[in-house]
């Protein structure tokens, strides 16, 4: 998705969003596979090439973060999301939406900090902070849409996400009604 220049170059991060919404619906093993695949794709998409040129002229090239670092960051985000999976399975999906925003915020901060560590000269202007939190907020607000899509897909493919909470509430509501009528 393109960066919104009027909002400090913030953007909707589709791949992290898809990852965060998916991992909360699966077990630990599929989460690991998703973390690897998404981290790998993310780095393949964003990694920059070497500086090039004569090393006697360009004596201090800007260092790049190692290819594959995103796999580790995606793993940490996945573990964060899975920590709140019991709540999601009880039907409290709102918490997962908030955590998806926090996880995106954590991801972008970590990525930016890594750049600072690798290249030196620690810089954290307020524009970067705005870019990070607005991106996290945009991603968080889109999470319910993706959850809805995931539930629709699960229904189409007859897959159970184990959304126990809604069933529980439904049965509690029915039982309450039955007791009242008797």
């Amino acid at each position, binding site marked *: *998705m*393109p*960066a919104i*220049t*009027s909002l*400090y*170059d913030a*953007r909707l*991060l589709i791949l992290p969003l898809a990852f965060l919404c998916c991992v909360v619906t699966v*077990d*630990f*093993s599929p989460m*690991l*596979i998703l*973390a*690897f695949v998404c*981290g*790998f*794709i993310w*780095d*393949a*998409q*964003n*990694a*920059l*090439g*070497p*500086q*090039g*040129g*004569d090393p006697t*002229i*360009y004596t*201090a*090239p*800007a260092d*790049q973060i*190692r*290819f*594959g*670092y995103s*796999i*580790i960051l995606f*793993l940490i985000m996945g573990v964060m999301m899975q920590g709140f999976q019991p709540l999601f399975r009880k039907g409290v999906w709102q918490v997962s939406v908030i955590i998806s925003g926090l996880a995106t915020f954590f991801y*972008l901060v970590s*990525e*930016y900090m890594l*750049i*600072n560590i690798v*290249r030196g*000269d620690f*810089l*954290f*202007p307020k*524009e*970067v902070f705005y*870019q990070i939190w607005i*991106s996290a907020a945009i991603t968080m607000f889109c999470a319910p849409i993706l959850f809805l899509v995931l539930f629709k897909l699960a229904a189409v493919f007859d897959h159970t996400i184990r959304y126990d909470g809604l069933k529980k509430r439904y049965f509690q509501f029915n039982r309450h009604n039955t007791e009242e009528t008797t």
Partner: protein
Amino acid sequence: MKPLNLITLLLFLTASAWALTRSESSVRQIQKSYYSIISPFVKSGSAMETKIRAFDEELEHSTSLSSKLHLAETEIIKLSTEIKHLRTLEKENVQLRAALEFKKRSPFRVIAAKIIRRKPSSWWETAHIDRGENHEISEMLAVIAAEGLVGKVDRPDDETSSVILLTDESCQVSAQVAGTHEFGILSGQRAQNGDNPMLRLRYLSRDSNAKEGQAVITTGKGNLFEKGIALGTITHVTRGPLYTEAQVKPAVNFADLETVFVLKK
């Protein structure tokens, strides 16, 4: 821990170690394969991006007009809108003429390209152009505009290429203050948002007499860029204990950049 989870964790760690130990050339190969798969999506994405940008511009345009609404008649607004549209066309015409003229008078062999995607990643200042290996574009070729240096080709794919812009921290250029013997390394700066990014000219001599308003050009050293390409104008000079550093305003307006030229070697 369940045995299945343990096995998956071990496989995950092995695969991560494999990914983290890839060499530059392997990474480039992975990226090439990845972009060849997703290139149809990138093209449709860039078309969408162009539409969004046009909508955004239209929105800004409407906001500026609405402030005039209280002062002018409806007819005047209509006329002013028409005039604005004509001016946009005129500006576009001038730009295209300048580009054509530039291509004619350029002493270098150039390939014209259009920017199809801007800043696709969060932290790097990059852009995608609609020319790739199929159009004889290769890595590290300089990319210029009529006003000066734009950047260099970072990763050519079959039909498109990724260009690292001069405003990125990792795009370093051997630079010279025009008309002097002051040499330094020019690069972008980290975490710059907005339409007016500034460049950083480092490693000028401690007693440098660089002054505000002086032009900065490429030296031709370092096997990356031809000599004499305009880079920008010095806006501020800071003298340090070891070397002098200058802030440079880029010659190219990166916000309005649409057509660029790739210099062939």
